[in-house]
């Protein structure tokens, strides 16, 4: 009986993996999209500031990306 339950739960592990990376990718995607949109807007308003906008944009988008990476690590650590 217990073994059956355990087996059934283990069978759901791939779904857990997919949910972990999929849900965290949604958040990161929204974040990076917002950052990119605002950066483009800023560059469009003030094209001379491209160099100044670019570096902070990349850094902040790496922060947003890190959230998805946490999900990825969790997804890999689910056996």
């Amino acid at each position, binding site marked *: 009986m217990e073994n059956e339950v355990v087996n059934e739960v283990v069978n759901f592990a791939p779904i857990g993996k997919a949910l972990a990376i999929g849900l965290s990718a949604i958040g990161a995607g929204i974040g990076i999209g917002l950052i990119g949109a605002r950066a483009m807007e800023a560059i469009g308003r003030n094209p001379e500031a491209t160099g100044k906008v670019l570096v902070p944009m990349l850094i902040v988008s*790496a*922060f947003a990306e*890190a959230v998805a*990476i946490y999900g990825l690590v969790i997804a890999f650590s689910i056996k």
Partner: protein
Amino acid sequence: MATNNINQIIEQPIHETTIYAEPVFHIGNFQITNSLLNSWLAVLVIIILCVALRLKLKQIPGKIQHIFEILLEGALSLCDQVTNDRRITLKIFPLVTSLFIFILVNNWLGLLPIVGSIGFVENSIFIPIFRAGTADINTTLALSIATVIGSNIFGIVAMGAWKIFNKYVNIKALGGIITKFRRDKNVIIVAPITFFVGILELIGEMAKVASLSFRLFGNVFAGEVLLASMGAIFLYILPTPFLFLEVFIGLIQALIFSLLATVYFTIASQDHEEHGEEEGYEKELAHV
């Protein structure tokens, strides 16, 4: 017997990308993992580079020295933007820059073609001899713990141990209940909240360690998995753009780690507590 051996050789060794670094050999009880080997390699590369540059140092710089001087100037001004103070910059710059260089070399060494593809087969599992040093949680955890503890030590040197201690376990605020109660009755509500904020600060310090280490480890490790899976789909041209992406991500992550370290050091060295507020209070009293 002979056929058995042949069968074993023909049998395809499995290589799973594991989340932990595989042990390559042991010295006594101490495991030498492939990530550790690679970080030693990184240290060796950095030492050779530094010695070569140091020996050729001249008053009138040559081409290579010029490039490094430009890089150094850029890094200094970037650090200045964060700290807003040249004196603090000059104090923390050596530590932060060496963190940057170490992480950068480690990230990029992990992308070399030899790394991860040369290894040996043990129990029909392929174990690579090298693996990017930062693709192991232990390396990044060590780096981030060292950074956070270092920032607190820097704060102690800059402001004194009592102030840093009060930042986390705010005895001063609790003591304020007794000393300030006559002047201001509100303190009995405010002081416990201030004390609790200090404990939150302590938890925040651990969160710093977790976020720093997991960000770096996750990015580098995910990059390795990405490259491996792209290579599995189609080996010849497909991984190239992702390889460039990984070079870029390696640079960005090294930059972010060292920039955040700078921010933590700067925060620790600044007296952000009610220092100004208290002075203002005293001034008000003087006016009255």
